[in-house]
Structure formats: C-alpha cells, structure tokens
C-alpha cells in the first residue's frame, strides 16, 4: 500500500459524512433535511453540524419554508460546491492513478 499526500484533498469535503452530503446533492437538484439524513444515515445533530460547515464555505445553500406549519429546510449544492466536488473527485482519482 502506498501513502498519499492527503493535504492535496479539500479538507471540507474530506470527511465521510460531508462527502456523502456533497455526493448526494451533486446528483439532485434539491433535497430536504430528512431525505439527506436518511440517505447518509446520520443523526439530526450530526447532520446539522456537517451541513453547517458546508454552508459556511458556501458549498451548499439552504431554503427554509413552512409546510403544514412545520419548518422544512431544503438544500442545494452551489456552483462553488459543484466545482469543489469535481476538483475533489479529480484529485482523488489522480492520487490513485499516481499511487
């Protein structure tokens, strides 16, 4: 097994749960919090923390609305997030090829 320079990878995306969120959001137009939670198998608190990190760097944007008097938050990947994700996957593939 070879060692890789992990510093070449985007720290924000390089966490299993944030990677899952990004991979999910890059393949859909939008998804709500509950859907993402089910797909990435995370708890409410854990997902909130990680999704907040992605929002802080503007990789993901959110829209809040009330449906049947209940708050529903829907998430979308931003152009910046999409580019960052593509770069991450390219880098990952590159590291593998060079390894």
């Amino acid at each position, binding site marked *: 097994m070879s060692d890789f320079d992990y510093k070449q990878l985007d720290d924000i995306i390089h966490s299993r749960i944030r990677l899952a969120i990004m991979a999910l959001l890059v393949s859909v137009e939008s998804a709500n919090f509950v*859907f993402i939670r089910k797909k990435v198998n995370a708890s409410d608190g854990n997902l909130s923390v990680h999704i907040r990190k992605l929002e802080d760097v503007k990789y993901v944007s959110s829209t809040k609305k009330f449906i049947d008097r209940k708050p529903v938050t829907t998430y979308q990947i931003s152009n910046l997030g999409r580019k960052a994700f593509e770069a991450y996957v390219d880098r990952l593939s590159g590291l593998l090829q060079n390894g």
Partner: protein
Amino acid sequence: MTSDTLQGDLAYIKKIVQESRKNIGLSGDHLIVWGILVSIALFVTWANHYYNWGANEWLHWVLVIGGGWLFEIIYGRTVDRKIPVRTYTDKIEGFMWLSIGITLTILGFLGIGTDAIRPEYISPIFSTVLAIGYFTSGVIYEVKWIRNLAFGWWGGAIIMFLFPGSYHLLFMAGMMIAFQAIPGFIIQKTWAND
C-alpha cells in the same frame, strides 16, 4: 492514507450518486386525474353525438380541461411542495409533461376552433403526442413498461388515422383508461413511498 481508503471513497461517491439519480419521482396522480377526466369527457362527447343531446361541447371541454389545469395548480402548490427530493430527471420530466399539456390544449382548442384540424383527427394527433411523453419518461427513468406504453399510443393513433369515424371518441376514452389511468395507479402503487 492508503489507496484502499481512496478507492473506498470513490466507490462510496459513485454509490451515492447512482442511488440518488435512481430516485423515481414519477407521480401517478396526474395520469389518474387526466386519464379519468378526459375519458369521461370523451364518453360524454360521444353520447352527445350518438343521442343528439345538443349539449354545448365547447363549454363541456373548457370545464374539463380547465378543471385539469386547476388540479395541476393546486397539486403544485400543495403536494409537489412536500416532495423531499427533486432530481434533474424529475425536473426534465415535469417540464416535458407541462409542455405536452400546453401543446395538447392549444391543438385541442385552437386546432379545432380555427378548423386547422378536423375533429375526427384530434384523437390520433393527441395519441402521437402522448406517446412522446411516455417514451421519453420510460427512457429517462429506465422503466421499460412505461416506455412501451408509447407503442400502445402510436398503435392507437395509426388505427384512428387509417379508420376515421366517431368511434374514435370511445376508442380514445378506452386508451385514456388503459394507457393513462391504469398506469397511473400502477405508478402510484409502485413508487408511492420512494
């Protein structure tokens, strides 16, 4: 960090992307409502001709089609808002059916109203347009039986073009039930909890 870890990450990304894209956003509700609404309207139009009721067909169709569009507006503002995920496929499919609906409304009212289309040929024209919708939906969602419904619509159109007559109202009503309303129920049952 090892190549195994990285390969695992790439496989993980691929799995999530594929699963998310596979999400079927098809809703049978639209097909059921339009299928039943239009088949009843076609039957009433046929009965109006056959029994010489003398009812105003334009008013009848304005109410039916207007009712269908009203349903779409209400549905969009209530049920559609609750959809937990919207894929790009759903977006394309939704806009394709919207454009088909607008096309059929124009053909039905202005095509016949301006005498550009003879009334006995409106059903086969509708059939060919609906076939496009089913074929494309089936292909983009990778559901063969939905794609194959198009052949039913095209086949029906060929029959109605070759053998015009007032029977086509009943024939088309039957197709609306067989190739629209019933598939709508199947879709609703199959993907209601997707």
